[in-house]
């Protein structure tokens, strides 16, 4: 009964979304106030029924209702309750229902927080989001219904959640990643609404900026979580593979990053308008493209969902309608008037233009690398090639170096025009200091010179140094001066320092990690860098739904001594064997031990890693996200609303 209720709720989501897509739009075209205002009610209705549908599926999982096919293939009565809930989005159908829920919640949020915007504008924005929600719901209903029953013969036990996914990181990774993906639909909807009305002005940019920042922050955290999960769960110590599915989330992030910066120019200076619209369309289109890549099986990947041609065609058709439609609208409606905004030389506009060009080129390189195997196949009629990390690293790293150098100059520039002498005077000391320290510091710490690390740390210090110097100057070097600065400024500083932190983490961990596969018998030791690893014991332990061989490995050196417990788990229902690596996390380094194979003499093979600064990669991403969220809190987004409230109250008291 409950699954049918969920199914019915999903049908209501579809119909209400269609209404949301049509009624307010007609209202806006004809000027019917009530029709436009219905957008708020309809948005709330979509969200309520999406919540209900999702709740029903959660209920089916929690109560082990294996008559639902999706539950039977992805859950098991032995699973702990939190993994039962997480199993809801453990495979294609359920994760798409989550996608729908998140889309409806973004729509609701826009409806709730944008009542101060002109009604004609906001009703169009919500209508665009309604069209998207209708498309998502139709996809779920027609190609991947999670409520389908496996009747008349319902299995008595489920076949279990993929053990790879039985993990905290992966329970929160999809919701956060989807929140980022779908969040770009808000900027997309604002862009389309602006195109429809032809009002591409600074106000439009100001309205979409906080939404874009929030979506971008979620996407940053989502990508970082995915990378962290791959690192500790896949068991071979890598944290980024340039895999098509990773690229699918990285491309919208790059485009979104460009959009965040371009919106700043459009809001502050009224420039780059049509470019910003294009980026807004692009960021969301790439999110959809990512969904297509992951769910259609067109590119193969370790993350691939079940391959189903019907789903692939549906998403491709949806992609054609949404992206093709919006790009056509863009080509036809973007005003041709050249913006009369004037800027020159080393102005902030130019620096942000550099930022945008580099990020979009980087995105295009990733897109090319991701789609090249497909193109090659189409051209050579079936020839197959793979594009690997060497390609991505060789195109990506130079772009990021240039971007980072420009990033150090960015905050010191002013709008319109900044004199080169001023920049030189301000930054030459910081630049020289970061080069000297960047070269000397790694040398002092590790005793070995690696030019990649020297360049990387010099660049990271350059970014941090120039931002701190600007912060010092802006605040006049006094704490009280900090209070004058806006949340937007702090957000920028935090995010940029986060970027530097990620950068240094990537460079150091890529170039000074040590890894080795060893065979150890009980009591035997081996040396890795400054550390001694001793296999103390291997015990048989039992978890809720698995049996494991648990090694006890003592690590000496590093100033301390501690014991780590890597596990080799065998899951009871599927017989799958999983490696649960033991990780001793640290600010300066991670020690990573994974169990390999049992040996005939009672020993084991072990994989040992020493990974300096690997955690900085994700901490930096979190800082970037924190910067994005901080900027959302900027007072100027609320000022408009307060002013209007005051005006209304004044009008009411006057009446």
């Amino acid at each position, binding site marked *: 009964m409950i699954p049918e209720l969920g199914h019915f709720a999903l049908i209501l989501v579809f119909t209400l979304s269609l209404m949301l897509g049509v009624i307010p739009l007609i209202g806006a075209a004809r000027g019917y106030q009530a029709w436009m205002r219905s957008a708020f009610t309809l948005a709330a209705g979509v969200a309520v029924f999406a919540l209900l549908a999702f709740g029903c599926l959660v209920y089916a999982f929690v109560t082990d209702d294996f008559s639902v096919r999706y539950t039977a293939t992805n859950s098991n009565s032995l699973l702990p309750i939190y993994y039962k809930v997480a199993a809801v989005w453990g495979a294609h159908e359920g994760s798409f229902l989550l996608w729908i829920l998140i889309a409806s919640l973004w729509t609701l949020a826009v409806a709730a927080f944008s009542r101060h915007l002109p009604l004609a504008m906001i009703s169009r924005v919500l209508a665009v989001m309604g069209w998207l929600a209708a498309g998502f719901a139709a996809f779920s209903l027609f190609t991947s219904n999670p409520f389908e029953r496996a009747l008349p013969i319902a299995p008595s036990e489920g076949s279990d959640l993929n053990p790879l996914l039985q993990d905290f990181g992966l329970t929160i990774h999809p919701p956060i990643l989807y929140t980022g993906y779908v969040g770009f639909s808000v900027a997309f909807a604002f862009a389309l609404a602006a195109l429809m009305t032809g009002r591409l002005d600074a106000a439009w940019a100001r309205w979409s900026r906080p939404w874009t920042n929030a979506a971008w922050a979620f996407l940053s955290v989502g990508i970082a979580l995915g990378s962290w999960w791959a690192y500790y769960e896949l068991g071979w110590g890598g944290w980024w593979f340039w895999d098509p599915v990773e690229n699918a989330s990285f491309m919208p992030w790059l485009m979104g990053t460009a959009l965040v910066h371009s919106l700043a120019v459009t809001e502050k200076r009224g420039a780059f308008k049509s470019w910003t619209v294009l980026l807004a369309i692009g960021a969301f289109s790439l999110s959809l493209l990512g969904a297509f890549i992951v769910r259609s099986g067109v590119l*193969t990947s370790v993350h691939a969902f079940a391959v189903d041609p019907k789903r692939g065609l549906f998403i491709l058709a949806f992609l054609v309608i949404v992206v093709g439609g919006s790009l056509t609208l863009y080509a036809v409606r973007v005003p*041709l008037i050249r913006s009369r905004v004037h800027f020159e030389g080393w102005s902030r506009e130019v620096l942000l233009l550099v930022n945008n060009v580099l990020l979009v080129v980087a995105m295009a390189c990733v897109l090319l690398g991701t789609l090249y195997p497909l193109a090659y196949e189409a051209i050579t009629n079936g020839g197959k*090639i793979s594009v690997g990390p060497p390609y991505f690293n060789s195109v990506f790293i130079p772009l990021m170096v240039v971007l980072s150098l420009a990033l150090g100059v960015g905050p010191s520039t002013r709008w319109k025009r900044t004199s080169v002498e001023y920049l030189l005077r301000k930054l030459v000391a910081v630049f020289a200091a970061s080069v000297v320290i960047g070269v000397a510091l790694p040398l002092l710490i590790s005793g070995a010179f690696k030019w990649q690390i020297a360049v990387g740390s010099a660049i990271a210090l350059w970014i941090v140094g120039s931002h701190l110097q600007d912060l010092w100057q802006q605040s006049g070097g006094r704490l009280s001066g900090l209070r004058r600065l806006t949340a937007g400024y702090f957000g920028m500083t935090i995010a940029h320092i986060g970027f530097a932190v990620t950068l240094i983490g990537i460079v150091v961990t890529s170039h000074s990690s040590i890894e080795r596969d060893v065979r150890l018998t009980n009591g035997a030791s081996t040396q890795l860098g400054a550390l001694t690893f001793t296999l103390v014991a291997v015990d048989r332990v039992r978890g809720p739904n698995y049996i494991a061989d648990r090694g006890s490995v003592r690590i000496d050196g590093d100033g301390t001594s501690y014991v780590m417990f890597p596990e080799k788990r065998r899951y009871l229902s599927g017989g799958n064997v999983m490696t649960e690596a033991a990780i001793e996390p640290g600010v300066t380094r991670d020690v990573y031990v994974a169990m390999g194979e049992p040996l005939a003499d009672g020993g084991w093979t072990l994989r040992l890693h020493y990974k300096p600064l690997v955690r900085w990669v994700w901490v930096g991403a979190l800082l970037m996200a924190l910067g994005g969220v901080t900027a959302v809190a900027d007072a100027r987004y609320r000022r408009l609303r307060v002013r209007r409230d005051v005006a209304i109250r004044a009008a009411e008291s006057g009446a």
Partner: protein
Amino acid sequence: MSRASLFIPLTAFVVIVALLYAGFSLNDPHQLPSALIGKPFPTFDLPALSAEGSAAARVTQSDIRGPVLVNVWATWCPTCRAEHAELLRIHDESGLRIIGINYKDNPAQARLWLAQLGNPYEFNVVDADGTLGVDLGVYGAPESFLIDASGTIVYKRVGDVNRRVWQEEIKPHVDVLAKSAAAAGAPHG
């Protein structure tokens, strides 16, 4: 900026969609690109699947010299069960040697499977962790690799080896290998 230039993004998108559609209709997920074709079999050092209770011998890449078919399988994989009969038939009829990689599996269940269904394998490498699988670019069982006499991968199959795949894809490769082996042997013989 002219109106026409505004259509550039749309044009780019149309090209991408055409590509996706082409890839979509072309793409047979059973024929994955493998960067490994023409490369030597990856190095490894893993235990062989032993009889119950006896000590496991260790095997390395030097134990894989062709012509031999290396088959990645697991007891948790239903397709492998379907494929198993065909592997037995190929081994019986053509005499092609087959080496198994028991992938992310439980050795006890693997032994039971071989005892019940028959054993076409010369020996089985126990890749319980999937580390060899990673090096081989295995993305799901079953997968099969044809290795020549120098230990080089000459062919890869993702998905099951059935009669058609054997006749149309693997057997021609095996014949070529046999012919070149004969040619290489000729001057001495």
